[in-house]
């Protein structure tokens, strides 16, 4: 893998909704690059045919019955919200994206 670039870090920061100053961008690019370089030992391994493990133990088919339980008190829920109006969570205007 080639070395991590500033542009890549800036892109990743955008995907993660983080804003970085120029100085932070330099520092993070350097630090993340070091960690990824350390991870280069994985890239050199031939793991063809090795299945990935996403879960340490393979449980299956864990389900719950379709029975209605308690919901939270809306007053308590909305009280925790930074902004609420008319029983709903309020957010500032949304630019672009979905309609």
């Amino acid at each position, binding site marked *: 893998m080639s070395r991590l670039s500033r542009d*890549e870090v800036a892109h990743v920061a955008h995907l993660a909704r983080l804003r970085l100053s120029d100085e932070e961008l330099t520092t993070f690019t350097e630090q993340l690059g070091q960690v990824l370089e350390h991870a280069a030992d994985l890239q050199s391994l031939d793991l063809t045919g090795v299945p990935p493990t996403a879960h340490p133990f393979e449980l299956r088919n864990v389900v719950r019955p379709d029975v209605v339980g308690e919901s939270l008190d809306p007053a308590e829920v909305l009280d925790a919200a930074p902004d609420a109006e008319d029983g709903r969570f309020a957010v500032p205007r949304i630019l672009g994206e979905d309609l």
Partner: protein
Amino acid sequence: MSAIDLAASVRRGEVTATDALATALRAIDARNDELNVFLHVDRDGAEARARAVDDAVASGRDPGPLAGVPVALKDNLCTRGVPTTASSRILEGWRPPYTATVVERLVAAGAVPVGKTNLDEFAMGSSTETSAFGPTRNPLDPERVPGGSSGGSAAAVAAGMAPLALGSDTGGSIRQPAALCGIVGVKPTYGLVSRYGLIAFASSLDQIGPFATSVADAALCLEVIAGHDPRDTTSLPEPAPALVDHLDDGVAGRRVGLVSELVEGADADVVAQVERAAAALEAAGAQVVRLSIPELRLGLSAYYLIAPAEASSNLARYDGVRYGRRVAADELGAMNEATRTLGFGDEVKRRIMLGTYALSAGYYDAYYGQALKVRTRMIEAFRRAYEQVDVLLGATAPSVAFRFGEKTANPLAMYLSDVFTIPTNLAGEAAVSVPFGTGEAGLPIGVQLLGPGRSEARLLAAARVLEVAS
């Protein structure tokens, strides 16, 4: 007084839970300003719980196996109506509307939660220095870190502020601070303890476990919190295992493997204590062999891709919309970004970006995908090792407690302090850190006992042997 002795006294009516709580609160008041162990002390809640235990005792009802035992909770465990921050600005002021399963189980067993302890922000760190609310100091040497990420919980027990504490261990966050603070810490098998109500860092690695001053106390606490929980899909189906009953099983006839990769690069004083522990186990009747598991060397790299990847997704919910802090802006995207930029510290940002990168189009296979395969390799390597031996032995941390700032400038150096503990998390298996001897500056050293999934009884019995020999 140990948790077991205290609970016995409370159950017999010799000590009231209220008095036991007062003792704990005095210890907290004496040193919390200096050590920054508790972020929040829930005096009213704890007093009410203690009174309820005393009422039960007075009226002849069973107050539970942990009757009146004050417990410290890592502040990434949700407690209804009690501030829960994960040591992050982004959750400052949040009071969850629900309680974690483990806390419910502790309370049902008569324990008295006294408050919420400091941690590395979202459990990301190995020194408790990344907390947004200042570092916790090691009670044994306030110039040094208590380890992390559960540094506050470890320090609470080490400082006598509570006989028991809960922490969470994603890559060593219980065992490493237990080692650095000279107490016992258990990382249970993945799924043994419900994660419901544990603020997620890396879901496939996180496990809640106990801190205690003795192996027996840790065993009792683990018995109380373990067992299937229908609210956690990944919870193992069986009830809690019997642990206390097996504490004196010893190690006679057990095969113990001293793993070279689990001492490699550790300070000489640490290596010396691991060797001494091997000798102690041998003296108690175990057969000690030396073995190498080269795959363990890959653990750190795999972990620092898998854990950040999961974290990047787990922490996406902190966006200023539903709870916690919001930094205002006139447009949603800008609000999300400002909230997260000011709400998260640098270590959390680093891991979110690392994880986002590892999962992103074009890099997934090379990083995250490859790490998952390494995880398979790791599990297979452990399985082969456990065909030869019953328990693995190694160091918990490469050194005794280090000084503040020693590793903060270089994230990779900090990550390396988890090198011996990470493989257990990747494999979803069990491990215990037990204090064994001292090293530099008379500071405690922890040795680590590792076993396959569901081997807690075996590991605690071995730990008990070392505790006695220590």
